């Protein structure tokens, strides 16, 4: 379980996160929604240690995440995708996913150069993982394409796939549906819903597609101006006055 308590983050005069508390229980999809600039991505950036908060605690399964350096997070089981997709552009899709699995390897420079059995074993294992994820996301046929050549929608899938390949127990997804064809969103919703079961990961999902978000998540946290303004199951949130005023708008 992820527990965020009293989180505060400011950039100069901008209070991006302002005393935020929420939890992500294991084995569920939890959504984080809110207006543009509400601070959602900033929360992810704090969780993955790109931003240093001014106050608050972030504890995941007993580990204080704020004590870890950015590259240690994946070892603690936290994987993430990026809102603006940050793929390894020049690498083929497969290698993008392999990088996700690479933190599992233990072989160093010398053993890799010599291709010792240990190094080969890691390669094989990483490949198996990647294949499984590609199949899950139905991107197997993109395997050898250069990531930078893909359409935005496909890039989003690869980005998510890379995070999944890292074998997270907590997966942070930042707007996976944006830029994806409307016709594909139902499918994406199903995929996200299956993640806890198939990969044993809880999901923290950020998106602006309300159909998707409310459809897949067990509980929803709503932010505005860096604060939590509502929390609960999708139906309750959908009807919440403040959420409608700040985010959904009158329809």
């Amino acid at each position, binding site marked *: 379980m992820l527990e965020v308590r009293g989180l505060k983050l400011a950039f100069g005069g901008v209070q991006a996160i302002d005393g935020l508390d929420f939890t992500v229980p294991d084995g569920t999809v939890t959504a984080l929604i809110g207006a543009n*600039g*509400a601070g959602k*991505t900033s929360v992810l950036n704090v969780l993955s240690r790109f931003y240093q908060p001014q106050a608050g605690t972030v504890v995941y399964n007993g580990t204080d995440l704020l004590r870890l350096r950015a590259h240690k997070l994946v070892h603690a089981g936290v994987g993430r995708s990026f809102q603006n997709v940050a793929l390894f552009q020049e690498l083929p899709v497969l290698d993008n996913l392999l990088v996700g699995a690479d933190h599992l390897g233990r072989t160093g420079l010398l053993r890799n150069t010599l291709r010792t059995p240990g190094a080969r074993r890691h390669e094989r294992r990483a490949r198996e993982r990647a294949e499984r994820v590609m199949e899950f996301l139905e991107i197997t046929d993109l395997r050898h394409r250069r990531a930078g050549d893909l359409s*935005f929608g496909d890039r989003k899938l690869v980005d998510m796939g890379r995070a999944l390949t890292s074998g997270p127990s907590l997966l942070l997804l930042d*707007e996976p549906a944006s*830029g994806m064809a409307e016709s594909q969103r139902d499918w994406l919703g199903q995929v996200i819903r299956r993640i806890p079961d198939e990969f044993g990961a809880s999901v923290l999902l950020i998106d602006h597609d309300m159909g998707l978000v409310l459809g897949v998540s067990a509980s929803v946290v709503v932010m505005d101006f860096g604060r939590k303004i509502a929390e609960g199951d999708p139906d309750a949130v959908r009807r919440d006055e403040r959420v409608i005023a700040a985010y959904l708008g009158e329809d």
Partner: protein
Amino acid sequence: MLTVDSIDCSYGPVQALMGLSLEATDGAFIAILGANGAGKSTTLKAIAGLVRPTRGRVLFRGRNLARLGPERRLSLGIALCPEGRRVFPDFTVAENLRVGGHRLNRRVLGDRVDQTLQLFPALKDRMGQSAGSLSGGEQQMLAIARALMTEPSLLLLDEPSLGLAPMITRQVFDAVDGIRKQGTTVVLVEQNRLALRYADYAYVLGNGRLRLEGPAGEVQDDERLRSAYLG
């Protein structure tokens, strides 16, 4: 006002558009829909002058644009708000807007900025912040505002709702509708059906070809939309 006359476009070996035609009359609000890779962005780029059709013509107010670059087209009144925002990340918000107003002289520039910001009040507090540090949605607003700075008579918007909160999406569409009401012709590319509520005429693309067209209301309800979408 705008006529796209059976154009073909390619990126190297990939043919992105095949014999596409469409039309926008003065003051119209046109929506272009289609799945990923259908060729929507390419259509807008061809109109704005970023890609050159290998066949066919693009006419604006009866004038063939073939030989004009993007800057010249802009001075005729064609503005494109490109896909993926493309804000200048190292510039402040104010500087981004001023680049949009590059052709304006200094006296009217300030007024124009104020006018544009009325549509996107959220940007007002961010004027000194560098655009790269804005949230995704804020960047999107900035990109649209920047395009409006050019005082276009034909505004081309490529997926403006990308990454916008539902309420903001509606605000943006309302704002665009407002712009249209002031006489600007709008061509809007979207994957989002919501666009059809604002547009008066819609084209649906699939695999580089026109699949369906008609008044927006009809297209929205049309079962064919679904099949056209899926190519």
